[in-house]
């Protein structure tokens, strides 16, 4: 009894915007979110009052929400959303905003994500990240996501035969890509030796398997294709999207994500398959999640991630361009903006705006999101297939 989902015809995403990341910031999340909104308005050549829809993601905005932000930023949107889905926020914001514009509930939606980072804010975020984390994870070593992903990684390695070198290959390639992305906080090349000899954090996770928390903001606009053409803005089309939460809850430990529930619909709705993708922007909070996404999104079979990694190269000019701006592992993780990093990079690649890291003739790209280790596993998965538009 499944109904055919309506496509996203006539709706586009445009003006990928980044407020450059910094390691620590004295400003609050409001400063970062206000700043990226300002840059979106300048980039689009519109007035603040032209934005009648707003979608916000942030971990450090408390006690405020998107509601308070409207007053803080002097906006009066007729459509407002607050998406607390961490690494899935960027794709989920896109699909929410696209439907709002398509239905006429809003004309121009600004999707923004941003966080500050101060010396104690990361500990504050993880110690009270969720009720289950507080009750049943943080008291066990207080290591935050490093411990949770160490357990998933250790288990994945024993089940699939993945070696540290396989994760290292992805990290090294992403660093190579990051050296071509001006906003990346990591500016030095990373060698396999550097990766292998890094200090242990939580076995088998070592330093370069971990993202560096930082401050920053990213955003984009969703509007009708006609509006984008009027404004002469390069845009991308949305061929399909999926999201899923708390999938496979009976798996004793996470080996697969919710993508596996919806992947056929993702490509079916898009009318293109995994091998039509000119690049993949995966959510890379830890390399094991990269491997899981390669499997769950159909680039290789379940458990074949290590072989896939050994058979491909992941730089911008490689056999499988992957996290072409360096991903969070090399750019930094600006809180909820980490969930936007892949989508703004995909938009740049598909509008020919990726400068020194442009994937040649990129027509189709996949963006994947993964978020929220509520207890023992990531609960939110999302993905979108985007295509080059013509301005």
């Amino acid at each position, binding site marked *: 009894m499944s109904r055919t989902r309506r496509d996203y015809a006539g709706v586009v995403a445009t003006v990928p915007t980044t407020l450059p990341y910094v390691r620590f910031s004295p400003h609050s999340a409001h400063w970062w979110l206000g700043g990226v909104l300002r840059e979106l308005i300048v980039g689009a050549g519109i007035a603040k009052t032209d934005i009648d829809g707003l979608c916000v993601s942030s971990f450090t905005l408390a006690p405020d929400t998107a509601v308070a932000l409207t007053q803080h930023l002097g906006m009066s949107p007729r459509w407002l959303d607050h998406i607390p889905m961490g690494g899935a926020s960027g794709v989920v914001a896109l699909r929410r905003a696209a439907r709002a514009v398509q239905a006429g509930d809003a004309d121009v939606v600004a999707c923004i994500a941003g966080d500050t980072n101060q010396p104690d804010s*990361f*500990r504050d975020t*993880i*110690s*009270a990240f969720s*009720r*289950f984390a*507080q*009750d*049943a*994870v*943080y*008291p*066990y*070593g*207080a*290591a*935050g996501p*490093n*411990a*949770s992903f*160490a*357990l*998933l990684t*250790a*288990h994945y390695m*024993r089940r699939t035969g993945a070696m540290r070198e396989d994760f290292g290959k992805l990290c090294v390639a992403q660093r190579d890509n990051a050296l071509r992305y001006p906003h990346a906080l990591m500016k030095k090349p990373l060698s396999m030796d550097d990766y292998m000899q890094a*200090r*242990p*954090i*939580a*076995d*088998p*996770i070592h330093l370069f398997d971990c993202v560096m928390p930082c401050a920053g903001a990213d955003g984009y606009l969703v509007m009708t294709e006609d509006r984008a053409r009027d404004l002469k803005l390069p845009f991308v089309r949305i061929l399909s999207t999926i999201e899923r939460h708390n999938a496979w809850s009976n798996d*004793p*430990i996470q080996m697969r994500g919710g993508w596996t529930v919806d992947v056929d619909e993702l490509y079916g709705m898009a009318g293109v398959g995994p091998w039509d993708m000119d690049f993949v922007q995966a959510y890379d909070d830890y390399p094991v999640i990269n491997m899981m996404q390669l499997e769950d999104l159909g680039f290789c079979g379940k458990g074949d991630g290590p072989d896939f990694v050994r058979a491909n190269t992941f730089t911008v000019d490689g056999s499988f361009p992957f996290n072409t701006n360096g991903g969070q592992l090399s750019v930094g993780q600006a809180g909820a903006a980490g969930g936007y990093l892949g989508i703004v990079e995909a938009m740049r690649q598909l509008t020919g705006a990726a400068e020194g890291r442009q994937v040649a003739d990129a027509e189709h790209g996949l963006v994947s999101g993964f978020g929220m280790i509520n*207890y*023992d596993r990531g609960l939110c998965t999302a993905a979108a297939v985007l295509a080059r538009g013509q301005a």
Partner: protein
Amino acid sequence: MSTDLDTQALPPAARSAKAREFNAIAAQARFALQGCTHCGTIQYPPREVCVNCLSDALKWRDVSSEGRLLAVTTLHHSNEPYFQARLPWRVGMVRFDCGPSAVVHVDADCIPDGRVRITLDLDASGQAVLTAHAIAPAGTVNSPSISSIPGAST
């Protein structure tokens, strides 16, 4: 290791009201998890309603404390002074024979995929915590290859 580590610090004590009910279970030297009196589901972490049928008729039910260690890690970094003073520290994920999975402290003699017995004890903050201890499989009691894992520590 630096010498200014805070050995007076306590482990994280914040818990929800439901999770604090564990403390009384631990004080009675019982091993019990939340069970649904309506559909029989055993669940962890503690919830307000049954994860299966959404009934709020939940009771602490004595269950088998045995399970399997699914994965283990040795922490070399912590965000809390209590653990910073005690690194390296082993934690793991177990699956109880009665169903749910749990993050636990892990004794040095535990190995991945091995059978474990989980105890419920009060930690230095007076909060109930789970710890996995190895159950030696038949014929390998006191096997030195299991009991001498380098670097392992709790």
